[in-house]
């Protein structure tokens, strides 16, 4: 048996689809190697083992949508030396943040026979809106190689290499043909954070921004160009901004400019 105690890893889930923590399970071969360097004490998707905190590193998936979750995340934070928010839900509120600009009560009434049993916050928010976050891994889902890089950097005591630059940087380095310049497709690569390895452009598909906005993303500048030169309408712009990272403050602010005013209530008639 190893004499030194291994650092402990715990996985926590909030409002999410489980796809990001599944990326850890997807590591398969590498997972065994990780398990020799980290003691995976809580990972309900893989094991019934559940150890109490404190933890050396916590992977937090999902967004905060209920009062209970808001309390729970502050407990997780207190118990975790390093907290890594993983995925679009944990870093930007996820697809469920679409409700942030909608009427949630109306949704609840149309979906549930007894909406009165529901109790949720007015918005779906990222982990960083509630507690301090040490690192964020973008993506829907996250990239397994980035996850491994963060865990191994943690074990070795160095800063993880998480580039905040555009997808274009990876796309050009990999020598893909540009779907925007030569295909005229509305690719979000120039405003989206790298990390996926320019996966969609590799298959001649425009990036739809599942990795969220890059640092200093010039969303409006790109949209202005796509509208003026690639015939993109307001509805299409709005749709492209309203996906997995719809809860991003930047995207919400810009999306508002393209939203059509709701039809006027005919109170006078």
């Amino acid at each position: 048996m190893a004499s030194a105690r291994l650092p402990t890893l715990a996985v926590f889930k909030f409002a999410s689809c489980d796809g990001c923590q599944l990326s850890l399970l997807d590591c398969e071969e590498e997972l065994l190697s990780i398990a020799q360097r980290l003691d995976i004490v809580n990972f309900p998707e893989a094991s019934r083992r559940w150890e109490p905190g404190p933890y050396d590193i916590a992977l937090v998936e999902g967004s905060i949508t209920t009062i209970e979750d808001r309390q729970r995340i502050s407990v997780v934070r207190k118990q975790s030396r390093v907290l890594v928010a993983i995925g679009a839900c944990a870093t930007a509120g996820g697809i469920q943040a679409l409700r942030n600009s909608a009427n949630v009560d109306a949704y609840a009434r149309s979906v549930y026979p007894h909406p009165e049993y529901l109790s949720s916050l007015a918005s779906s928010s990222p982990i960083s809106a509630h507690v301090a976050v040490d690192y964020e891994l973008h993506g829907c889902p996250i990239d397994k190689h980035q996850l491994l890089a963060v865990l191994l950097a943690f074990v070795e005591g160095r800063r993880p290499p998480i580039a905040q630059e555009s997808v274009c940087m990876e796309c050009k380095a990999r020598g893909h043909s540009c779907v925007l310049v030569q295909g005229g497709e509305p690719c979000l690569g120039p405003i989206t954070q790298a990390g996926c390895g320019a996966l969609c452009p590799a298959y001649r598909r425009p990036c739809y921004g599942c990795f969220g906005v890059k640092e200093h993303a010039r969303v409006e500048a790109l949209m202005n160009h796509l509208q003026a030169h690639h015939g993109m309408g307001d509805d299409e712009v709005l749709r492209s901004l309203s996906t997995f990272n719809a809860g991003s403050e930047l995207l919400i602010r810009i999306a508002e400019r393209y939203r059509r005013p709701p039809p006027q209530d005919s109170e006078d008639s």
Partner: protein
Amino acid sequence: MYLWSTQQLQALIDLLRARDYDVIGPAVRDDSLHYERIDSLPVGWGDRQDAGHYQLRERADQSRFGYNLGAATWKQFLFPPRETLFRVRDGDFVNCREAPQKMAFLGVRPCELAAIALQDRVFTEDPVEPGYLARRKDLLLIAVNCSQAAPTCFCASTGDGPEVNAELPTDLVLTECEPADPYYLVEALTQRGQDLLEEVGGSQAPASARQTVDRLMDATREQLTRALDTEELPGLLLGALDHPHWDDLAQRCLACGNCTQVCPTCFCSTAEDHTDPITVEVRHNRRWDSCFTQGHSYLTGSVVHRSVRSRYRQWLTHKLASWVAQFGRSGCTGCGRCITWCPVAIDLTVETEALRAAP
């Protein structure tokens, strides 16, 4: 000067391959022109280019060099986008620089040859980058004069084209004539090039060959519609650091870094450590960086170039002004890639002109 048929051009490729060269040249893939390892040249391809726009097109002739430039540059082979510099295993450093495969670049344009000469200065003068030097040492260069120009080309302004500058390091220079049924005028500029020329054979070019090349080059110069006024440019740009036009640029620039990634002379890189999860071996990797990223100017806890305005200004003033003090010439060879591949069609010739105008 020799005269080659298309068969003799193919014989050159076959000969080099038989001598264990990786022949790197143009290849059509995913509706675009790339530089890759090839065993023959694509036939009858051209392109349509403008700011923020590129389209490959089929030509009605048999031209082998009827295209202009794609997004790819030769620098990807000499200064690869990602490279492992060393590995650490069980606390020991392991050199992972292996003897590189011999390469021959086929179809290097004049502006690209100038760019290679510039990167030679960056990487092989003090300090020497051993990986670059090892790949560059045995590199065989086969250049092609440009028999046509794209609307984004402005090599005449920088003095780098459309004809190969014979002062630059190149082994052979080809000129494609009569694209409907092409033949090639071939000139050797080194002994190595001369040996290849004689081995491939062909006939002596007619006495009028020089005039033929001159005529073609004049025709290409006529096609050059873009220009960059380089008169007093370094002083002018460095004296215009507070010009309001930088703010205008910052409204449009995405800071995505595409211009720097397609630029044949940009040489910035960053390094990262990656641990192999299974072998637990650490690789110290270098990869291309860009002055448009936040990390590029991250120093002692803060970012120097915070705004897009300051990042674009850094790029343009370095490329066209401070480069002159650093390397004795501008860092731009007029290839126009930054214009074509900018997603929002920013054109450095237009922006530079605006910066010339009084605010």
